[in-house]
């Protein structure tokens, strides 16, 4: 069962950057328009309106989300009126183009293509500005997950001891010849990938035929196992390593609370940061299990094979993950929160039509369940973020400007499988590399660079992309080259205290 969960986790490894949902819905309609046309149209249509954007365009204004104008006004009070003007103008356009897609997913209006194109030009302009912020929003959790895994690997010896293998990798690597070992690792990989494919296809089939209860049950059982059993083992090993005694009563209390709150946060509602923290924890736990139970060469071959599989599954038209994402988009549902890390919250258009003034600026960030959509005061989130970073600014009643905003998911989503496999790579580098920290650091930076590039591609292509291939490729390349080429060199340099 738990591998089912891991397979599910591993396989929903897609990034969905939804800068604005409508752009994804209407993207297929204008997929044939070329970039040059965008630029021309943009110049024609927006030449008069984008005055405010030609003002002091420093990083502060550029990286703020254009959809929450009061945020821009915090940066530079002078820009507030123009920014608001531009925002409402932009919103009228986006609102206009959004209504058909929101209502029934189809649009027959002739005026819409032009507005769609214009909106997408603006969206494209915003993507590069959005891009940096979202990249950072993902750097932090990925880094945290890797730090947890590396810290555990380096301190708790349990996770580097060989204590048998999973049934999914039945071939042992304790063979005398290199060829036999290689063959065994390739066979292990084939079996593992087949299991993952089967699980993913099963999940997609269930999702397509709306067997939500089954999927929920499966996910709940898997996260139960992760949150309770694996946490218990982890805590036990950590206590053993540091030789700390804990009685069963305290242990039960701690594990029960941790697990129960985790279940609630992941599957129902909870503060966003707590949910993110739990998702990071379960990814780290899963990665630790993989690091422990996958034999060495098999782990590297599996990492390579999984990134190829990810590429195929997300980009091919009949790929299971692509079908999953598209079905979720068609039905306008978020993909299960238990499988995806989301850096921000979801909010709806229905609620936005209500009296905006009644929604006070709250700092609450409740995450939505799958079937219940809730209001989130996104501007408050952005505000709190920004006002922490810069000097305190007076708060505006921002809700009035949010009325026309369509359904939008701000922030980036990254599948938990990506977290897991990134952490497996870095953890394996930490566990097995004889060059110790240099290799780990190199793999860590390689993965972050890959993530950067992937998010950049995401901002350009605006559809779900596989997050594994680039990062894992860089990670593997850096691991092997650092371990075999850089490490001996750095060791010699360090022994003579030479600096290059």
């Amino acid at each position, binding site marked *: 069962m738990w591998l089912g969960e891991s397979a599910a986790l591993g396989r929903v490894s897609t990034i969905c950057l939804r800068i604005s949902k409508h752009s994804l819905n209407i993207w297929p309609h204008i997929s044939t328009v070329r970039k040059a046309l965008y630029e021309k149209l943009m110049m024609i249509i927006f030449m008069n309106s984008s005055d405010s954007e030609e003002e002091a365009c420093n990083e502060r204004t550029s990286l703020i989300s254009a959809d929450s104008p009061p945020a821009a006004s915090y940066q530079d009070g002078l820009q507030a009126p123009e920014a608001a003007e531009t925002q409402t103008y932009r919103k009228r356009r986006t609102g206009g183009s959004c209504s058909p897609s929101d209502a029934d997913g189809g649009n027959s209006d002739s005026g819409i293509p032009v507005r769609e194109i214009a909106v997408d030009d603006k969206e494209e302009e915003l993507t590069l500005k959005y891009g940096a912020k979202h990249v950072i929003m993902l750097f932090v959790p990925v880094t945290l997950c890797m730090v947890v895994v590396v810290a555990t690997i380096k301190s708790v010896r349990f996770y580097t001891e060989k204590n048998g293998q999973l049934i999914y990798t039945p071939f042992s690597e304790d063979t005398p010849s290199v060829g036999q070992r290689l063959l065994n690792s390739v066979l292990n990989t084939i079996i593992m990938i087949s299991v993952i494919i089967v699980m993913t296809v099963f999940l997609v089939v269930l999702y397509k035929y709306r067997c939500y209860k089954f999927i929920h049950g499966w996910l709940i059982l898997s996260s139960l196992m992760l949150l309770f059993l694996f946490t218990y083992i982890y805590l036990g090993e950590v206590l053993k390593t540091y030789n700390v005694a804990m009685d069963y009563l305290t242990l039960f209390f701690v594990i029960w609370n941790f697990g129960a709150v985790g279940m609630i946060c992941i599957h129902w509602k909870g503060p966003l940061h707590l949910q993110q923290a739990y998702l990071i924890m379960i990814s780290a736990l899963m990665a630790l299990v993989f690091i422990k139970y996958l034999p060495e060469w098999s782990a590297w071959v599996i990492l390579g094979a999984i990134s190829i599989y990810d590429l195929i599954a997300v980009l091919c038209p009949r790929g299971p993950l692509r079908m999953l994402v598209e079905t979720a988009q068609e039905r306008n549902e978020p993909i299960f929160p238990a499988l995806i890390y989301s850096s921000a919250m979801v909010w709806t258009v229905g609620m936005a039509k209500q009296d905006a003034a009644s929604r006070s600026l709250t700092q609450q960030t409740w995450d939505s369940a799958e079937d219940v959509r809730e209001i989130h005061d996104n501007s408050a989130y952005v505000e709190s973020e920004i006002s922490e970073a810069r000097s305190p600014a007076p708060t505006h009643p921002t809700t009035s400007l949010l009325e026309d905003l369509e359904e939008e998911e701000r922030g980036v989503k990254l599948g938990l499988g990506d977290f897991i496999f990134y952490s497996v790579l870095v953890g394996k580098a930490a566990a097995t590399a004889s060059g110790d920290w240099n290799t780990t650091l190199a793999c860590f930076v390689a993965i972050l660079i890959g993530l950067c*590039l992937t998010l950049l591609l995401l901002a350009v292509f605006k559809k779900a992309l596989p997050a594994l291939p680039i990062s894992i490729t860089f990670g593997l390349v850096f691991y092997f080259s650092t371990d075999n080429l850089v490490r001996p060199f750095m060791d010699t340099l360090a022994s003579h205290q030479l600096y290059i």
Partner: protein
Amino acid sequence: MTLAVFFGCSFIAFGPALGLCLFSVVREPLRVIILVAGKAIEGLVALSEDGCSPISIQQMAYVAGLGFGLMSGAFSMINLLADALGPGTVGIHGDSQLYFLTSAFMTMVMIFLHTFWGILFFHGCETQRWWEMVAVIFTHLIVSGLTFWNPLYLGSLIPSYLLMFATAAWAYVLSGGCTQNLLRSLQGQQSETSPQPGS
């Protein structure tokens, strides 16, 4: 070796650089990306549609240099720091007992040098002054060559620091600073004209 050695050396080596990071890089996401990914992303960042780049070329140079410096420092220092946490005696076989300390200082000067070299190199590329780039490469070779003196720390550390101050002054002047602004900022006043380097 003790935790004191570990923390002391890591703060000596990385303290100033992380301070620079904290005050000038961390708050701007774009700079963080350039710090991590370096030149790979800078070209794409410059492709902002509305005609103005969200980050100036000088900031990019500074952040790229800082990133290179941090990586080089990390690669030099991190294994030493890990060993500093374990058991052992420094210099038990007759080597210098100041090994960790001098490594930390050397790392710090290398990080600073990389930052300034970044600024100089970018400036040289921007203004087509090849001799600036040659000077950067040449000073890099000199500093690396100086480390051959290394058990003789006077011969390697002091010239490196002098070179670092010279490079710092040069980078400061190239970024538009002048002595007036420096004095003013040291006295706590605002400078009216040119920005401070790296801001």
